[in-house]
C-alpha cells in the first residue's frame, strides 16, 4: 500500500510553472534523502508518457522522497517565459528556479536528484553540470553520439532484415535519403546530418555532454543511466554511453541499465513497474554526496 500525499503548486520566479509535489504521507517524517525532480519528456505534460511520472513520483514519495513533477515553460500548463531564451537555456533556467523554490521550502538539504526521459535526460544532465544542489541524475534514453559498434550492430541488423531490403527496393531506405540529401543545398544537408541531435545552441553533443559528465562526476554526482531498445536510431547496446565518452571516468558513480525488451516510453504496465522499481532501488542505495560540501554557486543559464 503506497502512502503519500500530493499538493498542486505554482513555482518559478513568476509563479508561472505548474507542478505537483508528491510527499511522504507522514508530514513530520524527517527527510534525510535528496529531493527528486522529474522533468518533462519531450512536450508531454508533467504526468509523463502513459502516466509514468505520476507512478514514479508516488512510489518514491512512499519511500520517503519529496518529489516534484512540473512543466517547463511553454509545455503542459506552464506559461511561456517572457525573456525569449532559446529552448535549452529556458529549460535550464526553469529548472534552476524550481530548485530555488524547493530550497526555499527546505527540501534540498540533502540535495536534488534530477530525473528525465529523452529531452528530460538532456536537461537533467546539463543542469547537473552547473548546479551544486544536484547530487544525482536518473537519465533515461539520453541522446548519445553513435559509435563504431553502434553502426556495426545497426547495419548488420538492417542487412539481415527483409523489411529493410523491401524499403531499399521501394526507394524508402535511409541510404536513398542520404543520397538525396547529398545532392541537396547546404542547409538541407546540414539538417539531415544532424537529424535527432538535440539543439545545444551551437555546441556539439560530444563536447557538451563530456563537459557536463566531468563536472558532475567531479562533485560526486551519482548517475543512473537507462537505455531502451526503443531508441534504436540513437543507441543500440548497453555500453554505448561508455564508448561514446571514453575520457569520462564514470567508475562506481554510474549505474547502467539496458532494457532490450522495452520501448522508449515504457508503454506496458510491466515495463513501467520495473522502471519505477529500478529507479527506487538506485535512489535508495546510491552514495549521494553532501551538497553542502560544494562551494560552487548555481550555474548561469546558457545563452
Amino acid at each position, binding site marked *: 500500500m503506497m502512502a503519500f500525499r*500530493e499538493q*498542486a503548486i*505554482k513555482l518559478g520566479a513568476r509563479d508561472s510553472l*505548474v507542478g505537483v509535489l508528491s510527499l511522504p504521507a507522514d508530514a513530520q517524517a524527517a527527510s534525510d534523502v535528496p529531493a527528486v525532480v522529474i522533468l518533462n519528456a519531450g*512536450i*508531454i505534460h508533467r504526468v509523463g*508518457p502513459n502516466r509514468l511520472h505520476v507512478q514514479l513520483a508516488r512510489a518514491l514519495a512512499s519511500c520517503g522522497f519529496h518529489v516534484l513533477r512540473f512543466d517547463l515553460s511553454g509545455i503542459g500548463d506552464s506559461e511561456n517565459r517572457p525573456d525569449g531564451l532559446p529552448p535549452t537555456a529556458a529549460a535550464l533556467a526553469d529548472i534552476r528556479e524550481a530548485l530555488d523554490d524547493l530550497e526555499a521550502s527546505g527540501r534540498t538539504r540533502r540535495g536534488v536528484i534530477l530525473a528525465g526521459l529523452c529531452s528530460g535526460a538532456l536537461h537533467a544532465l546539463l543542469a547537473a553540470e552547473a548546479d551544486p544542489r544536484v547530487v544525482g541524475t536518473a537519465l533515461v534514453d539520453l541522446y548519445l553520439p553513435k559509435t563504431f559498434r553502434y553502426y556495426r550492430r545497426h547495419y548488420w541488423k538492417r542487412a539481415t532484415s527483409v523489411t529493410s531490403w523491401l524499403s531499399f527496393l521501394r526507394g524508402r531506405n535511409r541510404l536513398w535519403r542520404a543520397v538525396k540529401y547529398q545532392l541537396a543545398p547546404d542547409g538541407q544537408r546540414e539538417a539531415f546530418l544532424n537529424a535527432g541531435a538535440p539543439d545545444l545552441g551551437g555546441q556539439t553533443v560530444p563536447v557538451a555532454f563530456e563537459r557536463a559528465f566531468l563536472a558532475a562526476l567531479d562533485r560526486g554526482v551519482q548517475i543512473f543511466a537507462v537505455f531502451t531498445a526503443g531508441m534504436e536510431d540513437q543507441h543500440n547496446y548497453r555500453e554505448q554511453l561508455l564508448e561514446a565518452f571514453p575520457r569520462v571516468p564514470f567508475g562506481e558513480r554510474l549505474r547502467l541499465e539496458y532494457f532490450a525488451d522495452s520501448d522508449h516510453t515504457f508503454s506496458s*504496465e510491466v515495463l513501467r513497474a520495473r522502471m519505477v522499481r529500478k529507479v527506487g532501488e538506485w535512489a535508495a542505495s546510491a552514495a549521494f554526496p553532501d551538497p553542502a560540501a560544494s562551494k560552487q554557486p548555481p550555474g548561469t543559464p546558457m545563452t
Partner: protein
Amino acid sequence: MNPFYFGSSSRRLFGLYSPAERKRSPGRAIVLCNPWGREYEWAHRSLRLLGAMLSGAGFDVLRFDYYGSGDAAGEPADATLAGWEGDIQAAIEEIKDTAGATRVALAGRRLGATLAANVAVRNRAAVQELVLWDPVVNGDAYIQELWNMPPDPSLAAWHLAARPAEAGGGHELQGFPLTETLAREIRALDLLGLVPALPDRTLCVASEDRASYASLRSALKTRPKGPLPFDHMPSPPASVARRDLGAGAVPVQLLQRIKEWLG
C-alpha cells in the same frame, strides 16, 4: 491559472481553474471533459488552449483529471465511466462554488464528449450548454477502432497484451489498461440514443469524417425538439500523435469555432 485538488478525500481530483479575464453578468462557467488514454495525453495541448481562449472570452474555466487519470488520485486500472461521470458532476459543483456561476456548460472531446452528454442529459438543470468535439458515437465501434489502430512499431509487443484478472483483467490498449469493467461500460455507450434529450444549446463539431458521424449528423438534424448543429471542420486530429512531436495537433480554427458558438 490555478492548479488545485478537489473532490472527496477518497477521490481527489486534480483541477486547473482559469478565472474569466472579464466577468460576464450573469457569470458563465465551463467544464472541459478529457478524452481517455493516449488521446488524453496527445490532446492536452488543445484542451489547454481551448481553456485559455474561453477564459479570455469571459468564461470561468475548469479543466480537470478524472480519478485514475492525469494528476488525479487513483490508478488507471481504477477507472470506471460511472465514476468519471460522477467526477464531471463534482467538477460542475466545484466551479459553481468557486466562480459563483449560474450557467454551466460542458465541452468534451472524444470519450469525454460522450460522458459529458450523459451527464447533461441526466442532470438537465445543471448543464445549459454542451459541446461535443469529435464525440464517441458508439462505444463498441470506439473500442474496435482503438483495437484495430496499428500501434507504433516500438509498442507492438505490448499492444493488446492480456492483463491479469486480479488487476481487473482486460487488455492493455496503447499502454493503458482497458479493464473488463471499463470495456463493458464503454461498449454500452450510445450517443445516438441521447440525442433527443440533449440540451437545446448543443454543438457537435468534428475534425474528422468518421463513418459514425453520418448517423449522428442525421439524428441531430431530425431531432424532434429541433435540429442541433453539426459542424465538420477538417483539421489534423488533436488526439493522434504526430511522430515528430509526440503530441497531437492543435486545431486552432475548430477551437475558435467552439469559442464563437459559446459566445
